[in-house]
C-alpha cells in the first residue's frame, strides 16, 4: 500500500525531468515528506525553496498583487517550482526541482494537483 504522502508526491516525482519533489511547511523550511534522486539534498532544497517562495510571496503581497499560488524560477541548470497547498499564509508548500528542459506545462499541472491533494490530506 502506498503511504498517503507518497501518493500525493509520486505523480510529480514520476514526471519526466523531475529530480526532487518535497512537501514542506513554508514557515520552518523543513521537509515533511520528500522523494528525491540520490544527488539531491532534500533539506537544502527545502530550506532554499521555502525561503525563496516566502520572499516572493511577501514581496508580491506588499506590492499589492495578493497571495501567490505558484512561483517558478528558471535557470541554466534547472528549474524550481513551488506551489502553495491551501489558502493560508504559512501553509504547506510543494517544491519541485527539475531539469531545465523538463516540460514546464506538465510540471505546473502535476504540481497544482499535488498541492490540492496535499491541502486535502493535511
Amino acid at each position, binding site marked *: 500500500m502506498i503511504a498517503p504522502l507518497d501518493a500525493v508526491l509520486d505523480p510529480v516525482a514520476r514526471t519526466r525531468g523531475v529530480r526532487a519533489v518535497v512537501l514542506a511547511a513554508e514557515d520552518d523550511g523543513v521537509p515533511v515528506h520528500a522523494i528525491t534522486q540520490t544527488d539531491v539534498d532534500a533539506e*537544502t*532544497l527545502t530550506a*532554499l*525553496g521555502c*525561503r*525563496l517562495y516566502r*520572499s*516572493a*510571496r*511577501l*514581496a*508580491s*503581497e*506588499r*506590492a*499589492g*498583487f*495578493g*497571495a*501567490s*499560488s*505558484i*512561483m*517558478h*524560477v*528558471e*535557470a*541554466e*541548470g*534547472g*528549474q*524550481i517550482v513551488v506551489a502553495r497547498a491551501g*489558502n*493560508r*499564509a504559512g501553509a504547506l508548500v510543494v517544491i519541485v*526541482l527539475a531539469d531545465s528542459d523538463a516540460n*514546464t*506545462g506538465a510540471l*505546473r499541472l502535476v504540481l497544482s494537483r499535488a498541492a490540492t491533494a496535499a491541502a486535502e490530506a493535511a
Partner: protein
Amino acid sequence: MSDEIGRLSDLLAGDPASLAFIPLADALRRGSQPDVALRVVLRGLERHAYNADAHDVAARIYADIGDRERAKDEWEMALKITTGHVGALRGLGFLAFQRGDLSTAERHLRDAAERAPHDAGIRTALDRLRATRAVENGSNGASAPAAAPRGTYAVAEPLGELLIDANGLVLAGELRDHTGTDVSASVGAELTGVRAEAEQALARLGLGEWRALSIDAASAAVGLAPAPNGAVTLVAAAPGTAPGLFRRHLQRARQRAVSFFEATV
C-alpha cells in the same frame, strides 16, 4: 505603515464603536496581514453592518487572498448600501475583468468613471480595458495596441511592464494596480529584492544563472527576467494569463530592455 497601524489601533481601543476599524483594516491589508485585517473588519461590521466603506475594505481583503466569491458578495453589498459606491464599482469591474467578462467590467468601470471623473486610475483602467476589448474583437480602434485579425486567437496585452535598475529604481515603463494607482516604484523595489534571493538559492543548488522568475498571484501574473547592466525587467499580466503567452510577454520585455540600454548608453 506600522506607525499608522499603531495609531489606528490605539484609536480603536479608545473607542471600540468608532469607524477607525476601516482604515486600520485597510492598513493591515496593505501591510500583508490579511488574516488580522479580516478579523478587524468583520468585527467592525458587527457594529456597522451598513457601512459601505467597511464592506469595500472587506472585499479588498478577500480579493487579495484570492477569495473572489466573497469579494464579489462584499462589493455587491457595498453597492446595495450606497448606490454608485466608486470603490465597489471599481472592484466589481476588476473581478469581471479577471473572469474574462469584459463587457461587465467595462460597464462597472464606466459607471465608476462617471461618478469619479477626476480619478486618473479609473480612467486608465477603462482605457486599457477598452483597448483589450478592441483587440479581442479584432477591431481597428485607435486605442487598440495591436488589433488581431478576425479568426485568430485573442492576445491579451500585459497590464504593465517595468525596467528596473540594479538599485530597484524604475528606468522605464509603468504599472498600475486594480484601483488604478501607479505602483511602479513600490513594485519595482519589492520584487527586485527577490532577485538576490533567487540568485543565492540557485548558486547553492548549483543551477547556474537565472533566466526568469514568475509568480501566479491573486490579482496578477508577475514575471521577472534579467536585463543588461544588472537591471531587471518585470511584466504583470491579468491573473490566469496562459503561461506560454506570459512567457512570450516576458521574452519581448527582455528584448525591449536590451534595446533600451543600446539606445541610452
